[in-house]
């Protein structure tokens, strides 16, 4: 597909669409990509990045990360920083799955120790962490309790014995966005969330047992500071978000914003999925308080899954999970909007940073990081497909240019239906088993949609983030076992 003729390459990894590309653009749109990745991007990415550049209050550039692909409203991989005083908040810039994110958990076990128990582990994880269409969790809470979860996030888990204090320290924002107000959340959203705590969901959500082989440790010093210290060390990575709760909040506010944005605030958008409201308006503030509840539910959801993982490993190895070294490495959110301070023209400014399929990536020395990561920079977790592996990276100071942001995954290149035509789930499962990757799933059709060939080259995506100065590759992690929804 030909690239837009207005697209200018301004560095080996940065491409720019000027404001003349589309009427209404307030700032240029910048896409971080190599030549190979930019050529693989769909037209919709350019259109959507340009649409985002039209949103009121956008500062600097509308960005798209190297894993970017066709989303709704924003592209997936989209990033926009808004002036909070005159800019908007848009649910379409955060995604329906609010605080979808990645968590990486260490063990002190080696591949040699885990391999003989791999089937037992994967099967037990599959039975303990509900996956798939309409899945419900084993923990059902009352409405009043759920409201506490929505306001407290992982802090609730700590109080209930589902977390240790260190888990919270090693979660973005300490596992709780303060200011979540469940009074701003509909009863429907609460009802959808009640039985979904501790569930993985479907689509591209997964929990994977991985190995850090010595040849894939790319920076020994930082890997060591992250806790990757032994050859063939096993880790567990998982990907999920706020489930139906977050989706209902996004749906509710999308409809509410559509009703007021034109008549009350004189705002218009080219795609209704970009519905927005001034951040400082009553509607904008209500959504922000409700969105924080979904962020907190997602932190609690991932914390409950970590608790189940600890139980499963403990059961299979008959040892205390902390003796097995089951410690958090880090938890990153990749679908959020957050007030952050960034340097603009040398002066610090508060900005509302929307990240939709994009990961915060704080460089070394950032005071917001836990002390243990202040020297290295923030751990960044980029999940790949179950065939090709994933990356652990560290934030670089070059990310100041992108409001401390990097990629979030490998990014799809093929639609779900195209993937199902090309790949068969049962065959893929057998092929992967022959390669030593054991997979359990509710849906072989869903498995085919997640085949490695449906995604961009994760090595290329990770390398581009490093070349662009956003995040440095530390360890490539290879899959051993995976549960998929």
């Amino acid at each position, binding site marked *: 597909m030909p690239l837009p003729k207005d697209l200018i390459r301004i560095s080996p990894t940065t491409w720019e669409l000027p404001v003349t590309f589309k009427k209404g653009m307030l700032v240029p749109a910048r896409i971080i990509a190599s030549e190979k990745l930019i050529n693989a991007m769909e037209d919709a990415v350019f259109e959507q990045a340009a649409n985002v550049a039209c949103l009121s209050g956008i500062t600097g550039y509308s960005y798209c990360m190297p894993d970017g692909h066709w989303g709704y409203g924003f592209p997936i991989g989209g990033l926009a920083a808004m002036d909070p005083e005159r800019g908007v908040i848009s649910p379409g810039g955060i995604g329906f799955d609010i605080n979808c994110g990645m968590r990486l958990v260490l063990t002190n076990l080696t591949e040699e120790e885990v391999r003989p128990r791999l089937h037992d582990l994967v099967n037990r994880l599959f039975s303990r962490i509900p996956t798939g*269409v*309409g899945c419900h969790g084993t923990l059902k809470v009352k409405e009043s309790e759920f409201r506490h979860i929505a306001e407290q996030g992982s802090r609730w888990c700590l109080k209930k014995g589902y977390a240790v204090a260190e888990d919270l320290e090693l979660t973005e924002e300490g596992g709780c966005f303060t200011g979540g107000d469940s009074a701003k959340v509909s009863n429907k959203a609460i009802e959808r969330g009640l039985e*979904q705590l501790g569930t993985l969901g479907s689509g591209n959500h997964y929990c994977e047992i991985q190995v850090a082989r010595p040849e894939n440790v790319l920076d020994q010093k930082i890997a060591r500071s992250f806790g990757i210290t032994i050859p063939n060390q096993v880790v567990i990575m998982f990907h999920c978000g706020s489930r139906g709760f977050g989706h209902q909040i996004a749906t509710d506010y999308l409809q509410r914003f559509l009703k007021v944005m034109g008549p009350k605030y004189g705002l218009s958008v080219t795609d209704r999925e970009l519905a927005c409201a001034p951040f400082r308006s009553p509607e904008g503030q209500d959504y922000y308080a409700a969105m924080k509840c979904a962020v907190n539910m997602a932190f609690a959801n991932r914390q409950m899954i970590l608790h189940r993982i600890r139980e499963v490993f403990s059961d299979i190895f008959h040892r205390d999970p902390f003796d097995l070294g089951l410690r958090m490495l880090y938890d990153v959110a990749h679908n959020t909007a957050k007030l952050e301070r960034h340097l603009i023209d040398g002066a610090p400014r508060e900005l509302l940073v929307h990240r939709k399929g994009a990961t915060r990536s704080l460089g070394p020395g950032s005071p917001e990081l836990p002390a243990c990561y202040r020297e290295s920079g923030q751990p960044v977790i980029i999940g790949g497909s179950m065939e090709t592996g994933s990356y652990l990276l560290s934030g670089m100071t070059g990310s100041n240019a992108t409001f401390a942001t990097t990629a979030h995954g490998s990014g799809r290149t093929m639609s779900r239906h195209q993937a199902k035509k090309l790949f068969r789930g049962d065959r893929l499962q057998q092929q992967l088993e022959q390669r030593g990757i054991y997979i359990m799933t509710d849906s072989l059709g*869903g498995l085919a949609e997640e085949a490695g060939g449906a995604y961009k080259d994760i090595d290329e995506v990770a390398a581009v983030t490093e070349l662009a100065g956003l995040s440095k590759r530390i360890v490539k992690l290879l899959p051993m076992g995976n549960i998929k929804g």
Partner: protein
Amino acid sequence: MPYRFLETVATADIAFEAWGSTMEEMFVEAAEATLNVMVADVTTVARRETLTLVLENDAVDMLLFDFLGELVFIKDTHRLLLRVINIAIKDENGMLELAVTLAGEKIDPGRHPLQVDVKGVTLHLFEVVKTGGVWKTTVVLDI
């Protein structure tokens, strides 16, 4: 063909078009397409439970958005997969009222060939148009 999936639209999600000679038929087909995203063979969903819904909106597209959203909500809260039994849409002075009877059963991975979960209905490219007596909708579902 009452509905078809759009293979090159919305890479990570699922898009479809659904048609009907009446507004009601188009609603039924859109519901079937949404169910078909989750279950490969919708005929495996038996009529074990029935329920009725009444929804109102002044715009036909947003009425369909509300209806599909409600099906996703019921799937999440009651684990029910549903098909339309009866449907009527009345226009009361510009306010459209949808009355629908649905029948189905709880999700049973043993009998239902499950695919991917539908998490939400998006407004990206969402539209309802009537051309030459045919109602048509385009929907992108969040996966």
